[in-house]
């Protein structure tokens, strides 16, 4: 293969070069801006991670799997997965192979940005080589793959249900421009290469196409216009990219290393949050996943719309969406990019200015201290402090069952908030009042330490999550009752008889997605009876609607959410709905047509 054009230049490359320079420039500018927005310690942490070998490997692997192969999407829906990975990976391979061709055959041209892209225009096949044929074959192969992906993308616009998407977002005007230019890039490339194949050579796709064209159009008049069109389509796509949902392509490549470096959202609009917002591809998977969208009026409160409104800077809507969310975390669980919708919202809540800022630093906890059951004497063996939490005060059935199970297993325990305690701080955290939350956490830590325990047992996953993540209780193991009871069974301290009831387990948001506990409660239930699974379970479990995460959803607005979650649980006809959260249990009980128990109650009935 040899150079066909001595100067190595043709005017039609100009639009492409303009687009490329613009998009690279923009991305560089955005990168610098975001790095500057990061708090200093986060920036250092991030940059350090970029030179840590373990992180580098993880970044490369994640970018390859998530951005190119879209592994998560394959799991969701193979057709959707194929569509995305064919376009992304196919295009990536076309670019890579283009560079390989240039390096192999015309290495002196490698410094031309556009050469690998328009390679077929600039070369002429003089003598057939194995290498050339193989590369041409691969180029045609990947072009075909990309084209199949584009065809699927077109079908998806009218038949999104085939791709497992029920509701999807409406693209904005610029999104449409981006979309149509993206769709046109590869057919135009096919045409351009097809018209040129008798000069440049080609493989199974473009050579027959070239033959076909020449039957009708026996001249080279079509060659240049199609190359121009191809270049123009690329230019349009790259120039609108920063202002469309396609910005997720570069943004995600930054998001992955940032997340691998362990950064968290500190501000709703700056730094990591900005990267997350721009990483949102606007696919709308979160719309169907969001428990609130059972009511049509709530559709526009899904995370994809939050991201859109943040991009547009619509403050009124950002506030509304931020306050309404139940913080169940399902949008993050299903999101292929992993945009942390709940964290964005909590960060937004934290920016709010309050005229009245409570101060708990001087809170006198003596009334709680005086009534607290505590361990006396030197610590020996396991000393369990059971902290029921505020909500469980309203569900004495749960605390009674927990106590009963503990007694049966012969556990040395104290019910430290039998007479009431102070709030764990999680509701304060989710309301975005971090300062007050930390004050409560400090006060509560003192109380718990003073109990003389070495295990803190919790039956409320809301408490459990905050104790696990935010409390510093050295020497005290924090454990949820589902986990602890499972252990008691494993150790043979609790004998469980299998009953004949069928259970379905509802994963509470804070326990499942929030703390990653899925299997222990199921194993407990499997021993106590017959376990069935709801259609949506584990990571995709549907929030009961009672969550304290939502600030604005009123009582009556939650009814439909609860009923939808119940339908999912009861479809398989279980005798009892079992959960492991006092709030879920109370919420479900209002509308359930069958008993709703806490795990402790189910276990208590079957154990000796």
């Amino acid at each position, binding site marked *: 293969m040899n150079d066909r054009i001595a100067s190595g230049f043709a005017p039609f490359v100009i639009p492409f070069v303009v687009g490329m320079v613009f998009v690279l420039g923009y991305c560089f500018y955005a990168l610098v801006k975001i790095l500057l927005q990061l708090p200093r310690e986060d920036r250092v942490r991030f940059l350090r991670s970029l030179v840590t070998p373990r992180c580098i490997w993880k970044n490369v692997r994640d970018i390859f799997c998530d951005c190119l192969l879209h592994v998560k999407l394959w799991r969701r829906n193979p057709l959707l997965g194929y569509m995305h990975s064919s376009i992304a990976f196919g295009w990536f391979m076309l670019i890579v192979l283009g560079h390989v061709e240039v390096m192999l055959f015309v290495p002196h041209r490698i410094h031309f940005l556009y050469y690998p892209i328009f390679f077929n225009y600039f070369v002429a096949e003089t003598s057939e080589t194995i290498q050339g044929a193989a590369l041409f074959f691969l180029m045609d192969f990947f072009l075909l793959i990309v084209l199949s992906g584009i065809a699927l993308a077109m079908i998806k616009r009218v038949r999104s249900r085939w791709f497992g998407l029920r509701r999807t977002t409406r693209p904005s005007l610029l999104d449409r421009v981006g979309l149509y230019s993206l769709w046109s890039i590869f057919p135009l490339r096919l045409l351009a290469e097809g018209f040129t194949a008798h000069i440049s050579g080609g493989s199974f796709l473009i050579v027959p196409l070239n033959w076909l064209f020449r039957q009708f159009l026996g001249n080279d008049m079509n060659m240049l216009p199609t190359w121009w069109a191809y270049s123009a389509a690329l230019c349009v796509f790259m120039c609108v990219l920063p202002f469309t949902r396609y910005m997720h392509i570069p943004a995600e490549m930054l998001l992955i290393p940032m997340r691998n470096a362990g950064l968290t959202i500190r501000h709703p609009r700056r730094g990591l949050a900005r990267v997350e917002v721009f990483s949102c591809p606007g696919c709308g998977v979160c719309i169907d996943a969001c428990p609130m969208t059972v009511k049509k009026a709530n559709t526009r409160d899904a995370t994809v719309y939050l991201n859109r409104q943040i991009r547009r800077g619509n403050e009124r809507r950002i506030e509304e969406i931020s306050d309404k969310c139940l913080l169940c975390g399902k949008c993050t669980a299903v999101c292929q990019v992993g945009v942390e919708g709940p964290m964005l919202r909590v960060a937004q809540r934290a920016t709010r200015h309050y005229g009245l800022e409570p101060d708990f630093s001087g809170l006198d906890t003596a009334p709680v201290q005086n009534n607290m059951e505590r361990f006396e004497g030197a610590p020996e063996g396991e000393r369990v402090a059971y902290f029921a939490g505020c909500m469980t*005060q*309203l569900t*004495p059935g749960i605390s009674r069952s927990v106590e009963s199970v503990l007694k049966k297993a012969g556990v040395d325990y104290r019910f430290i908030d039998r007479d009431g305690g102070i709030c764990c701080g999680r509701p304060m955290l989710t309301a975005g009042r971090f300062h007050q939350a930390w004050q409560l956490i400090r006060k509560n830590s003192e109380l718990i330490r003073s109990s003389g325990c070495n295990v803190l047992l919790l039956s409320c996953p809301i408490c459990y999550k905050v104790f696990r993540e935010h409390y510093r209780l050295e020497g005290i193991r924090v454990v949820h009752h589902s986990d602890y009871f499972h252990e008691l069974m494993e150790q043979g301290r609790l004998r469980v008889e299998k009953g004949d009831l069928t259970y379905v387990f509802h994963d509470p948001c804070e326990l499942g997605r929030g703390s990653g506990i899925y299997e222990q409660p199921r194993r407990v239930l499997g021993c106590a009876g017959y376990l069935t699974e709801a259609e949506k379970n584990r990571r995709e479990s549907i929030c009961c609607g009672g969550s304290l995460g939502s600030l604005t959803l009123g009582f*009556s607005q939650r009814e439909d959410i609860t009923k939808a979650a119940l339908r999912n649980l009861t479809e398989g006809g279980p005798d009892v709905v079992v959960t492991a959260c006092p709030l879920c249990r109370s919420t479900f*009980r*209002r509308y359930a047509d069958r008993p709703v128990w806490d795990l402790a109650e189910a276990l208590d009935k079957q154990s000796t």
Partner: protein
Amino acid sequence: MKENVIILGGGIAGMEAARQLLLLGERPVIVERADHLGGHVADWHRLFPDKSPAEDLLEGLRPGLEGAEIHLGTTVSSLNALKDGYNLTLSDGSKLHGRALLFATGFELFAAERKEEYGYGIYNQVITNRDLERWFNTGKDSRLSGRPLSKIGFVHCVGSRDLKAGNPQCSKVCCMTAIKQAIELKERFPFAEVYCFYMDLRLFGKKYEDFYIGAQRDWGIHFIRGRVSEVAETLDGRVVVKAEDTLSGRPLKVSLDLLVLMAGMLPNPSATALARQIRLDVDDDGFLRSRDNLAGIIASNRPGVFYAGACTGTKTVPETLAEARSAALAIHNYLQDAK
């Protein structure tokens, strides 16, 4: 031949209506799901405002039912509207046809275990108004036997005026029932302290206020304005009740030997299900909708269907009996007109 008048429900509304219909020369047929007549009143010991025995009331109604067809222990499996009346299939498989239909289906007592924070079904010290009346009647209740009762509490509005319990309506009779029961307990345990936790005291009927005055003056019953929020068990076998003493504005705690929950009146779900089968209007509160709430309380939106008693809303005993009589008369007139 006389045509059937089918009465759904054999409580006091159904009994009184049947009695009056017989006097008017009609053919009433009572379908009752329990194995005895009398409905909720049969569970009760004494009735306000005169503390007259509930049994006396039923005793007065029963003789008048001779000649009425009564199906006990029977429910209605299906209900159809025909051109000339209504067709019923009963749970025993038999069929009934009636020219007119009277809903005397009454109410359902709120299941107190649904207000879990009050601990009914969890703590032995917590019972309901019905449990207490049954105990007055039978003297049998394992939760009450052999325990000295020195401190007793009553919680008003359990499952009434409570959106969270699914019933925002006032049940009307519980305030008065609580005072009556409080006095009855004082009669048995003169040295007990009795506390009534209320939000509003609604004592509107003849002699009700006298009862209230008597409870304060003669029996020294304490009235605390505040809704109970939580009940917990103490180590010595009592329950601690937490409320806010809204009049002093401070949290309040008291430990009790017995807590009586005044469970409210809910719509009877089986009545609602039957009403749906023949497209009767159901009101927002879940009770059957009368044609109007002044002069047409016993009338429905369908010809030949009449209401009496608590199927259209919470009612006292005298109201129920009065409605039963007026429904009987309306049915009689309806049948005369149809001829």
